[in-house]
């Protein structure tokens, strides 16, 4: 009898379980080892391109050329048990149970060249994990790094600049 009741609840949509497992990979991180071997004040732009390959973003910022190498990977596991509550003229839904685990890893190198020689090198290998087990709320964390902000701005700048050019 209990099994039948549970089946009816699930089949009629009174209780909706959901399990989502995913993974996203964007770009290769083969350049990491090469980036670690670059020397400020010594390595040139041609050497860098030959060693690390093409960057994800390249842009001129005042008197320096800035190159970004970026790769990203994330994993998601999410389980939800939601219970839609019918109201007159409006439908409402509430998550009776929510459990999620999201982990991500960003690898980035920012290289600045002046007169064709490496001026500054910044490397980040940042892993983050957000786990939440709640009823009706989501727990999350965000990567907030100055380097990420610069990357987003410079990527946008490069996109705008290409729009003004005509090969």
């Amino acid at each position: 009898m209990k099994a039948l009741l549970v089946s009816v609840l699930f089949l009629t949509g009174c209780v909706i379980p959901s399990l989502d497992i995913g993974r996203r990979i964007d770009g290769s991180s083969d350049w990491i080892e090469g980036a670690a071997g670059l020397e400020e004040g010594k390595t040139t732009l041609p050497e860098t391109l030959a060693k690390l390959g093409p960057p994800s973003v390249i842009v001129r910022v005042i008197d320096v050329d800035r190159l970004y190498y970026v790769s990203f990977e994330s994993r998601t596991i999410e389980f939800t048990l939601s219970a839609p509550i019918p109201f007159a003229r409006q439908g409402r839904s509430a998550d009776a149970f929510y459990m999620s685990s999201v982990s991500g890893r960003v690898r980035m190198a920012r290289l600045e060249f002046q007169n064709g020689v490496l001026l500054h090198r910044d490397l980040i290998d940042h892993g983050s994990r957000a786990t939440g087990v709640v009823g009706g709320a989501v727990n999350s964390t965000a990567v907030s790094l100055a380097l990420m902000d610069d990357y987003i701005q410079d990527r946008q700048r490069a996109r705008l600049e290409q729009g003004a050019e005509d090969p």
Partner: protein
Amino acid sequence: MTRKIVRTAIVLLPLCLGGCLWADAIDGSSWSRETVAKIEVGKTTRAQVLEWLGPPRQLLRLTEGEALVYSCSLEKSTGFSIIVASTWRNDKQYDAVTVIVNRDGIVTAVGSRFDRDKSAHGMPW
């Protein structure tokens, strides 16, 4: 016994209904390794690069010249859904070439990567 089978079937029915996703998305046109290998630093001209590789995806002014950026991505998506559960995986990899040309129109640096074929379908784990 029969009632037990029916109950079990009712419970398991949603698990049997679902779908799957198997998709390849290509963004940009690719080029051969041989063509890229023809580009020589100090010899090849901007005009030759444009002739061999076509118009770049991005053309950016640098402090001592310009960068011709070529890229082509392949994103392989795999997903399975059984109503209450779903799994997915997106794998995006790139073929890319960046050519730096000086103010005289001569190639001064070149970097290439051919990772597009490393993109793979599969499960998320």
